[in-house]
């Protein structure tokens, strides 16, 4: 059952406009890395790769944008279009439906950001010891995709404005508020992701340091991921169609 819904969703995700937009988005870090290599490097390559490229561009911007687009598309657009009825009017558990949708969003997001990140990172770090940067951020991106996806899938079940709310969460909460009030970082997927990266990145602290400890990050990821998925399933099993005539 999960497989059927999963494959169906993937087919729907590969639309011309959306794939083009994501492709361009994924290309950006690669281009930036190329520019970096062509120019004069007076900064340490590892430091640039970790702080500027991965933390500054990929985790902060690319990852959440990709996750928000895919996460709200997998279930949100079905609900908006009216095709969700065909999935729900079936003897299939709501948990399986949510799981299938989540997996599809996770796969699409991970492919987008991982390919982009690894390519850009490899270019930036060429000829230098990686200090575990590629590994660390690779794992972090995979896990971050999952938690972001879970969050946005849940939002798209709860509200029809999931996309803009997701964007407000990412750029206002994780962007502005987290910067101003350190405590709010406990509720920030961005910082969980950075925390996980820190686990593998062996570079000294001047190169890269996450604000959240790795263990804290992993635990919170598990909690947030499980809680949002559980809530999404609960809301989906109480799904009500809006008033038409």
């Amino acid at each position, binding site marked *: 059952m999960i497989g059927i819904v999963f494959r169906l969703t993937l087919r729907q995700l590969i639309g011309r406009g959306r794939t083009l*937009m994501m492709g361009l988005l994924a290309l*950006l870090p690669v281009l930036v890395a190329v520019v970096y290599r062509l120019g004069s490097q007076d900064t340490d390559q590892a430091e640039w790769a970790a702080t500027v490229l991965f933390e500054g561009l990929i985790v902060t911007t690319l990852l959440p944008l990709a996750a928000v687009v895919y996460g709200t598309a997998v279930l949100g657009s079905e609900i908006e279009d009216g095709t969700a009825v065909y999935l729900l009017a079936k003897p299939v558990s709501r948990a399986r439906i949510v799981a299938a949708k989540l997996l599809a969003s996770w796969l699409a997001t991970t492919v987008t950001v991982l390919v982009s990140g690894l390519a850009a990172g490899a270019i930036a770090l060429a000829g230098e010891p990686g200090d575990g940067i590629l590994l660390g951020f690779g794992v972090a991106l995979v896990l971050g995709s999952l938690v972001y996806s879970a969050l946005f899938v849940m939002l798209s079940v709860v509200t*029809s404005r999931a996309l803009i709310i997701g964007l407000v969460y990412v750029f206002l909460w994780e962007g502005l508020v987290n910067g101003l009030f350190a405590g709010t970082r406990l509720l920030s997927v961005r910082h969980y992701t950075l925390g996980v990266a820190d686990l593998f990145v062996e570079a000294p602290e001047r190169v890269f340091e996450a604000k959240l400890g790795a263990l804290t990050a992993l635990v919170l990821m598990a909690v947030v991921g499980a809680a949002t998925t559980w809530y999404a399933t609960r809301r989906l099993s109480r799904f009500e169609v809006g008033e038409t005539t």
Partner: protein
Amino acid sequence: MTLYAGGLRSAFGLGRRTSAKVIPFALAVLAFVPALVQVAVGALTSRLDADVDLFAHEDYFGYVQIILILFCAAVAPELVGRDQRDRSISLYFSRAVSRVDYALAKLAALVSVMLVLTLGPQMLLFVGNGMVEDDLDGYLRDSWDLLPPILAGALFLSAAIAGVGLAIASFVPRRAYATAAIVGVFVLTTSVAGILMETADVSFARYALLVSPLVWEGAILWFFGARPDPGSEIRDADFHGAVYAVAGVVTILATTALTIVRFRRMQA
């Protein structure tokens, strides 16, 4: 034609479902929050004779920039997309309204709404600062020359954001993607411009600033006659302030033209 702009403004700027209005409204309120905080703090500390100035006028625009971007991203696609989807666009075009007028009217509506968010908090700040001063006349005499830059900055910022937002919304029919695209464009140009400044040769990289939201900061600093912070990209780029203003105006004109062209080509 001007009547039409006014009519469109009320029809689309405010006439949406309640649930859809929540987010723009919430964002609008957030834009005022720092000003409120400043005024409140000022009122509390005035008794202590301290001079608390959390937000300078010229910096305020920078703080609320993301809120303005998110607001535009939420509202612009609604403004444009609804007509396209409902096909009521044919109705508008079949009347004696030229497509140019239609595009301009939409733009005017969006800019006006955004002006509330840009000018409003600034005026609150201005008036609030004045109220905690003992010498109101003196304050007004000293500070009245802040008003032109405030006005210019608010107008410039509103038009710049609205112009880009509306252009993107008119090219991306599906509402959700338009929203994501608007946020994406603004955020990514800022990030990339910043990265390039650090990464590549400054004399070339600084041109990247001119196509990014950093233009707004540069222009506003120039309006206020203030200096950029040390270490900021604007300081490093070392352009004359007017360059930013010109770049901004060019962007506004270009995006408006794009929007008009888009509407002219559109199938009714």
